[in-house]
């Protein structure tokens, strides 16, 4: 019989990407209190995002949005058994160090918070905790992956209850992946140049036909139909922010969105779970907002 090495490796890329894989087919919900986190877990959330204000309130209040208070994050960690994520400002690697020290399960380097660095994202390979980053197109997604992101999400306009931007990002990312799948080897150099992304990652996409890490949908989702829409377009999971706790009946809506995400191809289930769950958040049109979060980061 062979002997095995006794050394365990933590924080490797496969271990980080592994958790992203486990979160597929699920709903990650924004919560601001332990009570909301319990409601999310009761409803079947596969993870929660702990933050001080949901994006709709960040938008309303203005000012600088920063990493959440550690005490609040710890309160949420104590309240639930599912993974807890938290947000750091773009480029703010010290906020990320603190979140890692708190033992959060995933760090979202997020455009919803006010960016802390205008030129650099965080070197995510330096961390044991996995990172998720937003992307509006494939080039941006691949740059984040080359910095160590273990999950990519769309960068739909958070806090608007309007799914149109997230849909644009998903279609752009998945559309370019399809095109790369039909490109010949010489064209891949041109793709890498155009996307401003590492050639090796472009070549990997050509070979596998998919992004090297899971692609989730985030930004503006407010209804079970929105969640199933994102899944049918090709997202592997959905983030729901303001859409749950800014609605009439968060517990019912959360459960309905969880079921819609699993049974996203079954219109009978979608009709059933969309019925009798109260009013969604009101939402805002893209021409009514003065700050587009998606333009933060590069």
């Amino acid at each position, binding site marked *: 019989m062979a002997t095995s090495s006794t050394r365990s490796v933590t924080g490797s890329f496969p271990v980080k990407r592994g958790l992203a894989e*486990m979160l597929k087919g699920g709903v990650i919900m924004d919560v601001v209190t332990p009570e909301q986190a319990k409601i999310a877990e009761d409803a079947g959330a596969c993870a929660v995002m702990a933050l001080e204000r949901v994006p709709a309130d960040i938008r309303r209040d203005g000012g600088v949005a920063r990493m959440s208070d550690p005490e609040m994050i710890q309160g949420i960690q104590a309240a639930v058994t599912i993974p807890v994520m938290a947000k750091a400002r773009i480029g703010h690697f010290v906020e990320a160090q603190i979140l890692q020290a708190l033992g959060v399960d995933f760090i979202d380097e997020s455009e919803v918070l006010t960016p802390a660095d205008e030129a650099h994202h965080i070197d995510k390979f330096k961390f044991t905790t996995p990172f998720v980053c937003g992307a509006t197109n494939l080039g941006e997604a691949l740059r984040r992956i080359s910095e160590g992101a273990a999950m990519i999400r769309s960068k739909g306009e958070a806090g608007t209850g309007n799914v149109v931007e997230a849909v644009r990002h998903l279609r752009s990312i998945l559309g370019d992946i399809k095109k790369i799948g039909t490109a010949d080897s010489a064209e891949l150099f041109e793709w890498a140049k155009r996307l401003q992304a590492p050639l090796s990652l472009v070549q990997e996409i050509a070979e596998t036909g998919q992004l090297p890490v899971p692609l989730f949908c985030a930004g503006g989702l407010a209804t079970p139909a929105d969640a199933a829409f994102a899944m049918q377009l090709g997202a592997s999971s959905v983030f729901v922010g303001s859409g749950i706790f800014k609605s009439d009946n968060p517990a019912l809506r959360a459960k309905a969105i969880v079921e819609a995400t699993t049974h996203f191809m079954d219109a009978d289930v979608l009709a059933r779970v969309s019925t009798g769950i109260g009013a969604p958040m009101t939402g805002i049109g893209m021409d009514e907002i003065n700050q587009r979060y998606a333009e933060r980061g590069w």
Partner: protein
Amino acid sequence: MKPKLHIGVLALQGAFGAHTEALRKCGAEVRLVRAQEDLSGLQGLVIPGGESTTMSNLLVASGLSEVLKRLCQDGFPVFGTCAGMIMLAETILDGRADQVSLCALDIEIRRNGYGRQNDSFEQDIIVHSFDTPFHALFIRAPVIEAIGSDVEVLASWGDRPVLVRTANILACSFHPELVSDLRIHKIFLSIVENFSVTNPR
């Protein structure tokens, strides 16, 4: 040529895609299972990793929990990984009070027993029937605290069992679907094959 084995992968939430790919590489015909009618004609079922509390909710909502419990009692081959092993366990520690179990495997299991994500790890382990180590990924993995007398331990890490079997139920606390090594999926497919000989579809 041998006929293809028909395997279902429970696709309520979690790593069902990776299992599907691994099973297809082993030559199986795979169907995603989200409702009772998806089970017809299957010869075995995989319950993937993911969040066991989420899966538990969805199992109840879809009416699948009672059906799967009966299937397990009837000796139907089921392979559970990580959260899937939690779903199969008789006793769940640190779970939610309302969490359902299929009670198909006489083990006591502690959710997230190896810790949070920062404690997740990769490790070569010894599987008794393999001649080389198996590279295992443990992701917020559950710990087997105790096992019943009819449970066979196929692999351990430290002093804990990590791959166990009882009759046609196979379960592990790590993720064979996340590595290219297909040997553990093949153990399950051989269980399915033996079951199918005596219980034709």
